[in-house]
């Protein structure tokens, strides 16, 4: 049996939740699907205060933003149907989804789809990188902040982007000793205020340095790092050994575009946006009519931008289905302005460059 639904949103992280809220405000019925038992995506692991402005819940902790957004969505029980513990297995032409809902296999015919699947973590190739005790930053946050389990006692963080810096701080708060944060690039990747917080705690940050190999029998027992020259080549004789029982890898994210690819949406490789990303219109519609993408699934950015993109996609997808928000024009204008501001500083340069490249692709075709 095939179930008929109007607007299906895949992923209930910051972007998907915001899309659902705007759709419901527009009077649009929504099926919101998430594979996790809890809605909120990565927000439920974020114990730090967010940046941005009040419009994106700045100075509120991520975990509390999740609560707010989930409450917003639950305010519309007649319009928003929620499937949690539900994994979308496939997206097929004519907008048919196959979903594993708990233990049941379901087929859904949608009229429009918003893909807000987020991102996956990049991995790093080094000797013995499969030893137990070597984690991605997402796993460390899940263990620590969702389940209250320490991932180790002594850890080295690989990567100094905002995720690496923030998770290092959270590890220290949890009583885990962070021996060092190492960064292959010659400069720190994330916000310096996060880096300053770590230095104050006595956590050293070492740039132009990477992990060479991990050592250990049944689990990681130590690692060897090496310094890199300006050509990113190893400098012989600069190896250093750290005794650790865990290593955290935080070297970036890639958009989760598998479902979009399966459907045949056009994707382009744009390194500034995190890898393969969907070609989108200004309304966040992909090259397939009625299929939208927003948040990290469309380009890797901060959660603040993901939320705003979700709002826009929720509005535009609903409009496509004939449900126009009473304040549509004002809201769209405001959200676009918010994105512009969030991306306007030096930290937005990469994303601006990436979006310009994507714009070029769009105009070209």
């Amino acid at each position, binding site marked *: 049996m095939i179930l008929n639904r109007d607007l299906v949103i895949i992923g209930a992280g910051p972007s998907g939740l915001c899309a659902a809220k705007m759709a419901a405000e527009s009077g649009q019925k929504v099926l919101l699907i998430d594979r996790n038992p809890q809605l909120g995506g990565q927000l439920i692991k974020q114990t730090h205060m967010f940046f941005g*402005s009040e419009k994106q819940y700045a100075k509120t902790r991520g975990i509390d933003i999740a609560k707010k957004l989930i409450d917003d969505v639950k305010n519309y029980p007649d319009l928003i149907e929620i499937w949690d513990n539900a994994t979308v297995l496939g997206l097929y032409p004519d907008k048919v989804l196959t979903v594993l809902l708990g233990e049941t296999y379901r087929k859904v015919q949608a009229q429009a789809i918003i893909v807000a699947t987020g991102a996956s973590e990049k991995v790093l190739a080094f000797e013995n990188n499969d030893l137990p005790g070597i984690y991605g930053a997402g796993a460390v946050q899940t263990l620590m902040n969702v389940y209250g389990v320490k991932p180790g006692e002594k850890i080295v963080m690989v990567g100094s982007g905002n995720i690496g810096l923030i998770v290092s701080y959270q590890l220290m708060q949890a009583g885990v000793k962070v021996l060092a944060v190492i960064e292959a690039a010659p400069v720190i990747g994330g916000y310096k*205020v996060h880096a300053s917080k770590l230095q104050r705690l*006595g956590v050293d940050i070492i740039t132009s340095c990477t992990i060479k190999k991990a050592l250990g029998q049944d689990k990681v027992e130590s690692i060897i790092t090496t310094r890199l020259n300006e050509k990113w080549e190893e400098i012989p004789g600069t190896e250093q050994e750290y005794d650790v029982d865990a290593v955290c890898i935080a070297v970036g994210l890639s958009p989760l575009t598998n479902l979009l690819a399966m459907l045949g949406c056009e994707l382009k490789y744009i390194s500034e946006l995190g890898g393969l990303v969907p070609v989108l219109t200004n309304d966040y519609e992909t090259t397939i009519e009625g299929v939208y993408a927003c948040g990290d699934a469309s380009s890797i950015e901060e959660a603040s931008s993901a939320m705003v993109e979700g709002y826009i996609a929720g509005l535009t997808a609903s409009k496509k289905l004939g449900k126009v928000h009473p304040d549509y024009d004002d809201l769209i204008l405001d959200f676009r302005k918010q994105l512009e501001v969030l991306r306007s500083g030096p*930290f937005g340069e990469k994303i601006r460059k990436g979006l310009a490249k994507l714009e070029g692709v769009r105009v070209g075709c």
Partner: protein
Amino acid sequence: MLNQKGYPSPEQVKTKFPDVKILVKPKAIVECYEKIPCNPCSTSCPFKAITIGEDINNIPIVDFDKCTGCGICVYSCPGLAITVCEVLDDKIRFKIPYEFLPFPKQGEIWSAVNRKGEVIGEAYIEKVTLTPRQDKTQLVQVLVDKDLLYEFVTIRSKVYE
């Protein structure tokens, strides 16, 4: 140093402090050196003493005439980059944000720590506040030696040494 290590140079630190004469009253020291999209310090200030403006990437500017040193910005800054500083006759009083266990308690002596994480002296815990409004970031008021004006940034429990 900021880009490689994450701590500012002593010269950078001094640019964020007003003249010592102004510090006879408590004033916010906003150690924001980098343009990032963020403005809670400005929007949380009840006295409109911190300006960022339309472009939230701007570096905050403190109007020391308007600043009362109340400390609201200290726990509102997501980067924990603000302290309040007051120069007394023989000591310096700081209000700092603190997010670690164990909680400091009034009357205790903790280590005074600099921006590189080094112990540089002792800090007497004068007062600790944690209201619901502070959202789990404690505001700790401490007294440190006078020569630590541009050095002191946080405290560390002696348990850890």
